[in-house]
């Protein structure tokens, strides 16, 4: 009987193998977000999003609150990094993507071929801070070139002259600097390396601005959370994260010299300041790095959600498109009121107006 049994299983396996090879070759890409709509709770339509971890704490908390509002569906957001967010959105395995690096022209072209025009909807502003772990040192000043040298591996000790010159009266230890960066394609990295490229020609010519540059030195962390954890666990470490990760995990972060030559502590105010007096383009792709505004923190970025301009064209059903509009509208209204309590800066008025108009323009619901 066991032989018979084995033979049966064998046949079944062989058959499935044939079927599988038959349709194998170029099977579709997969993500965790597809096909689980039925399992999620909520009364309305379920939406799946993926991407940036910069916005993950905000979006996940929002999704909990949004879920309790009347008639709303459930939102399932996975923080996988901005690179994967853009990719999954383009491949339509998620309903919306999350990114802190606006899509490049060639990425937009690829998306247009897949589902028509893409809208960048900014949902909040955030600062990228240089977090460090040095016992007893709560205040540290850095400027762009020094930060670039640290990430290039040319400044390797905390008591290096370059750092000491910026920090009169601070007793810097003779410890090695342990550099921490991201491992995956990240919008936070894109913003951070954009800053390094702008202030340091050597960085611009070397690793440059990228979602995933070739790092000269350092340990990799997964997501903003992973970088924060790596800094937290290692004395002498330096890393970069969205400010909410630093604040909520009690990590110290350095004041950075801005365009005016003043040292600025990242905060809600200095982040908001960076977004003021800026002429936002109509496609809502922009960079807030090195703002000229007084008191502005230099590494500030918006974080965007990516949606199709015309849901029908992209093959979305009406209910999904309507739900996307509903969710984005909620983010730009009720969500904005809550952003500050989660350490993100709400959008400035003129940007909010443009974003709202963009959401209203979505077709296919």
């Amino acid at each position: 009987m066991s032989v018979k049994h084995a033979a049966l299983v064998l046949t079944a396996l062989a058959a499935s193998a044939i079927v599988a090879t038959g349709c194998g070759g170029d099977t579709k890409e997969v993500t965790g977000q597809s096909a689980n709509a039925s399992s999620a709770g909520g009364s309305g339509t379920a939406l799946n999003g993926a991407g940036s971890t910069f916005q993950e704490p905000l979006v996940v908390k929002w999704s909990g609150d949004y879920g309790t509002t009347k008639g709303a569906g459930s939102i399932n957001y996975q923080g996988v990094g901005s690179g994967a967010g853009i990719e999954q959105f383009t491949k339509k395995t998620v309903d919306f993507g999350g990114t802190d690096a606006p899509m490049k022209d060639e990425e937009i072209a690829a998306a247009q071929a897949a589902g028509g025009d893409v809208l960048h909807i900014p949902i909040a502003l955030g600062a990228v801070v240089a977090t460090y772990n040095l016992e007893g040192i709560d205040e540290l000043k850095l400027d762009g070139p020094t930060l670039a040298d640290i990430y290039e591996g040319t400044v390797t000790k905390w008591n290096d002259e370059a750092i000491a010159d910026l920090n009169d009266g601070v007793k810097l230890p003779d410890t090695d600097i342990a550099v921490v960066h991201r491992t995956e394609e990240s919008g936070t990295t894109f913003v951070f390396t954009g800053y390094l490229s702008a202030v340091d020609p050597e960085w611009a010519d070397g690793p440059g601005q990228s979602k995933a540059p070739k790092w000269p030195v350092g340990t990799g962390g997964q997501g903003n959370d992973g970088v924060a954890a790596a800094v937290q666990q290692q004395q002498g470490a330096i890393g970069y994260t969205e400010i909410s990760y630093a604040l909520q995990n009690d990590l110290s972060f350095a004041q950075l010299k801005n365009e005016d030559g003043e040292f600025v502590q990242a905060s809600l105010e200095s982040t908001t300041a960076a977004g003021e007096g800026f002429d936002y383009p109509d496609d809502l792709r922009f960079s807030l790095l090195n703002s000229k505004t007084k008191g502005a923190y230099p590494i500030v970025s918006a974080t965007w959600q990516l949606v199709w301009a015309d849901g029908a064209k992209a093959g979305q059903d009406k209910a999904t498109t309507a739900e996307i509009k509903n969710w984005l509208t909620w983010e730009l209204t009720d969500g904005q009121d809550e952003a500050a309590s989660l350490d993100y800066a709400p959008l400035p008025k003129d940007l909010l107006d443009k974003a709202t108009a963009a959401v209203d323009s979505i077709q296919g619901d």
Partner: protein
Amino acid sequence: MVVLVVLGLMIWFTTMRSLPVVQATGASFVTSSDWLPSAGDLGTLSFVYGTLVTAAVAMLLAVPVAIGVALFLSEIAPKRLRTPLAYLIDLLAAVPSVVYGLWGVLVLVPFLGNHVWGPVSDHAGGFPLFEGPATGRSYATAGIVLAIMALPIITAITREVIATVPSAHREAALALGATRWEVIRLAVLPYAKSGITGAVMLGLGRAMGETIAVALVIGGSSTISASLFHPGYTMASVIANEFPEATGDHINALIGIGVLLFVLTLIINVGARLLVWRTARKLR
């Protein structure tokens, strides 16, 4: 019979998925350490290197201890203690790797990184193996965690092998007035030698294939560094870390790393099993 088919399917499917990428990359898939999937650079040398280094550290630490434990349990421990102590060692194997990883990253990494590796590195005076900056997440920490995980396997198989040594050999040595150590050295070890080698290789296979615990403590860096205190990646851990975020060729390259790892561990496992089997058969 099913198992044969399954093994065949395993090799077939993963190879088919990854072959195009590996072919397109050519020899540099294993000879280059340039890993930047977003730019199409898919050299995996640094992962192979990390796998070998961490496994070597693990074996260096685990083998003497594991064999010592096995000999203690089968030769000199009081009869009453043998079973409970053996259970405790088995318990070491029953703890899931994610729990070792959790303990490793939240307890071991901060402790070693902040209090041990740094001072060692400072006193080693620039010796390349211990060069700074020393970080808790490193080859060395991964090696320690792997040593803990490989130990129970080596011990268990070594005990099995030692148990097959005929008691006549021990008695003969004892009759000649040998000390306990001499019994072990003259009667036990020569007979069990190839079996113990097999046990060590099985431990090595386990160390090379271990994923989650390593992924948590090794840091994540695709550079090759001589220093044990620097972060790196192993083949298994890079798959686990990058898979969820990967797309396209990147994913197929990761599957390719999986195939490479599988082949490496397969060679080691087959060799080990042959050695263990031969010992058992020789004594039969």
